[in-house]
């Protein structure tokens, strides 16, 4: 005989199972989109950690406007400078956030802006050097209120 307690335990297990089955698939889809966006920039080149410093607050109340800055260690001379900086967010519907192109005349490889984040996840900054090498930095960020996907009040 099915008791109330057994019935509840069984349905809870089922609900948990469904949740587990669905959630990773969605995560895989966004991660694949991020990989593709990154590969479009880097090609087959190796992306190493270091030389880049991504500065974003680790805990965010409102994902609609988040201060973000990227600094890259570089002398910024004609022979050794940062050519481009790219920023990606793994949980955004479109992983690309910003791409900037720098020249030796930039003097310092620093860029700052305000961004939107749709969900808790990793933000990645990649710098392309004039010698063709790629360097990166990433941060895990917790977002309480999501941007991009909320219903507009119009």
């Amino acid at each position, binding site marked *: 005989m099915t008791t109330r307690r057994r019935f509840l335990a069984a349905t809870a297990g089922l609900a948990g199972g469904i949740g587990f089955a669905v959630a990773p698939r969605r995560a895989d889809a966004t991660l694949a989109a991020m990989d593709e966006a990154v590969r479009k920039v880097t090609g087959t080149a190796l992306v190493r950690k270091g030389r880049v410093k991504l500065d974003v607050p680790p805990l965010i109340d409102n994902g609609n406007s988040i201060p973000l800055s990227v600094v890259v260690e570089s002398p910024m001379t004609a022979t050794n400078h940062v050519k481009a900086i790219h920023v990606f967010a793994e949980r955004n519907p479109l992983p690309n956030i910003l791409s900037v*192109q*720098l020249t030796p005349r*930039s003097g*310092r490889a620093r*860029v700052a802006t305000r961004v*939107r984040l749709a969900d808790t996840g990793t933000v990645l900054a990649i710098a392309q050097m004039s010698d063709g090498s790629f360097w990166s930095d990433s941060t895990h960020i917790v977002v309480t209120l999501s941007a991009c996907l909320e*219903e507009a009040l119009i």
Partner: protein
Amino acid sequence: MARAVVSVPATAKRGEVIEIRTLVQHAMETGFRRTQLGELIPRDIIRSFVCAYNGEEIFRADFHPAIAANPLLVFSTVASASGTFEFKWAGDKGFSLTESAKITVT
């Protein structure tokens, strides 16, 4: 009417690295949001930004929907000669805006 605010130091020493701040009034509609009736709101964002110093391009940025409304952009350059900075934004629905600033280099 869209407006832009740029902040460039009025004077600088030759060879000094100066910081340039730009702010544009723009909703940066992402194209992922829906109205309460479920219709998708079309994307309307600024796509590109170019800064030229005495006619030579020194900085370029490509924006995506993940840039917050009223895009702020802070970057730097080396003050090499007196002259003007030209800032140009371009985006969806024919959005185009230019702004300029003068600098005196000693």
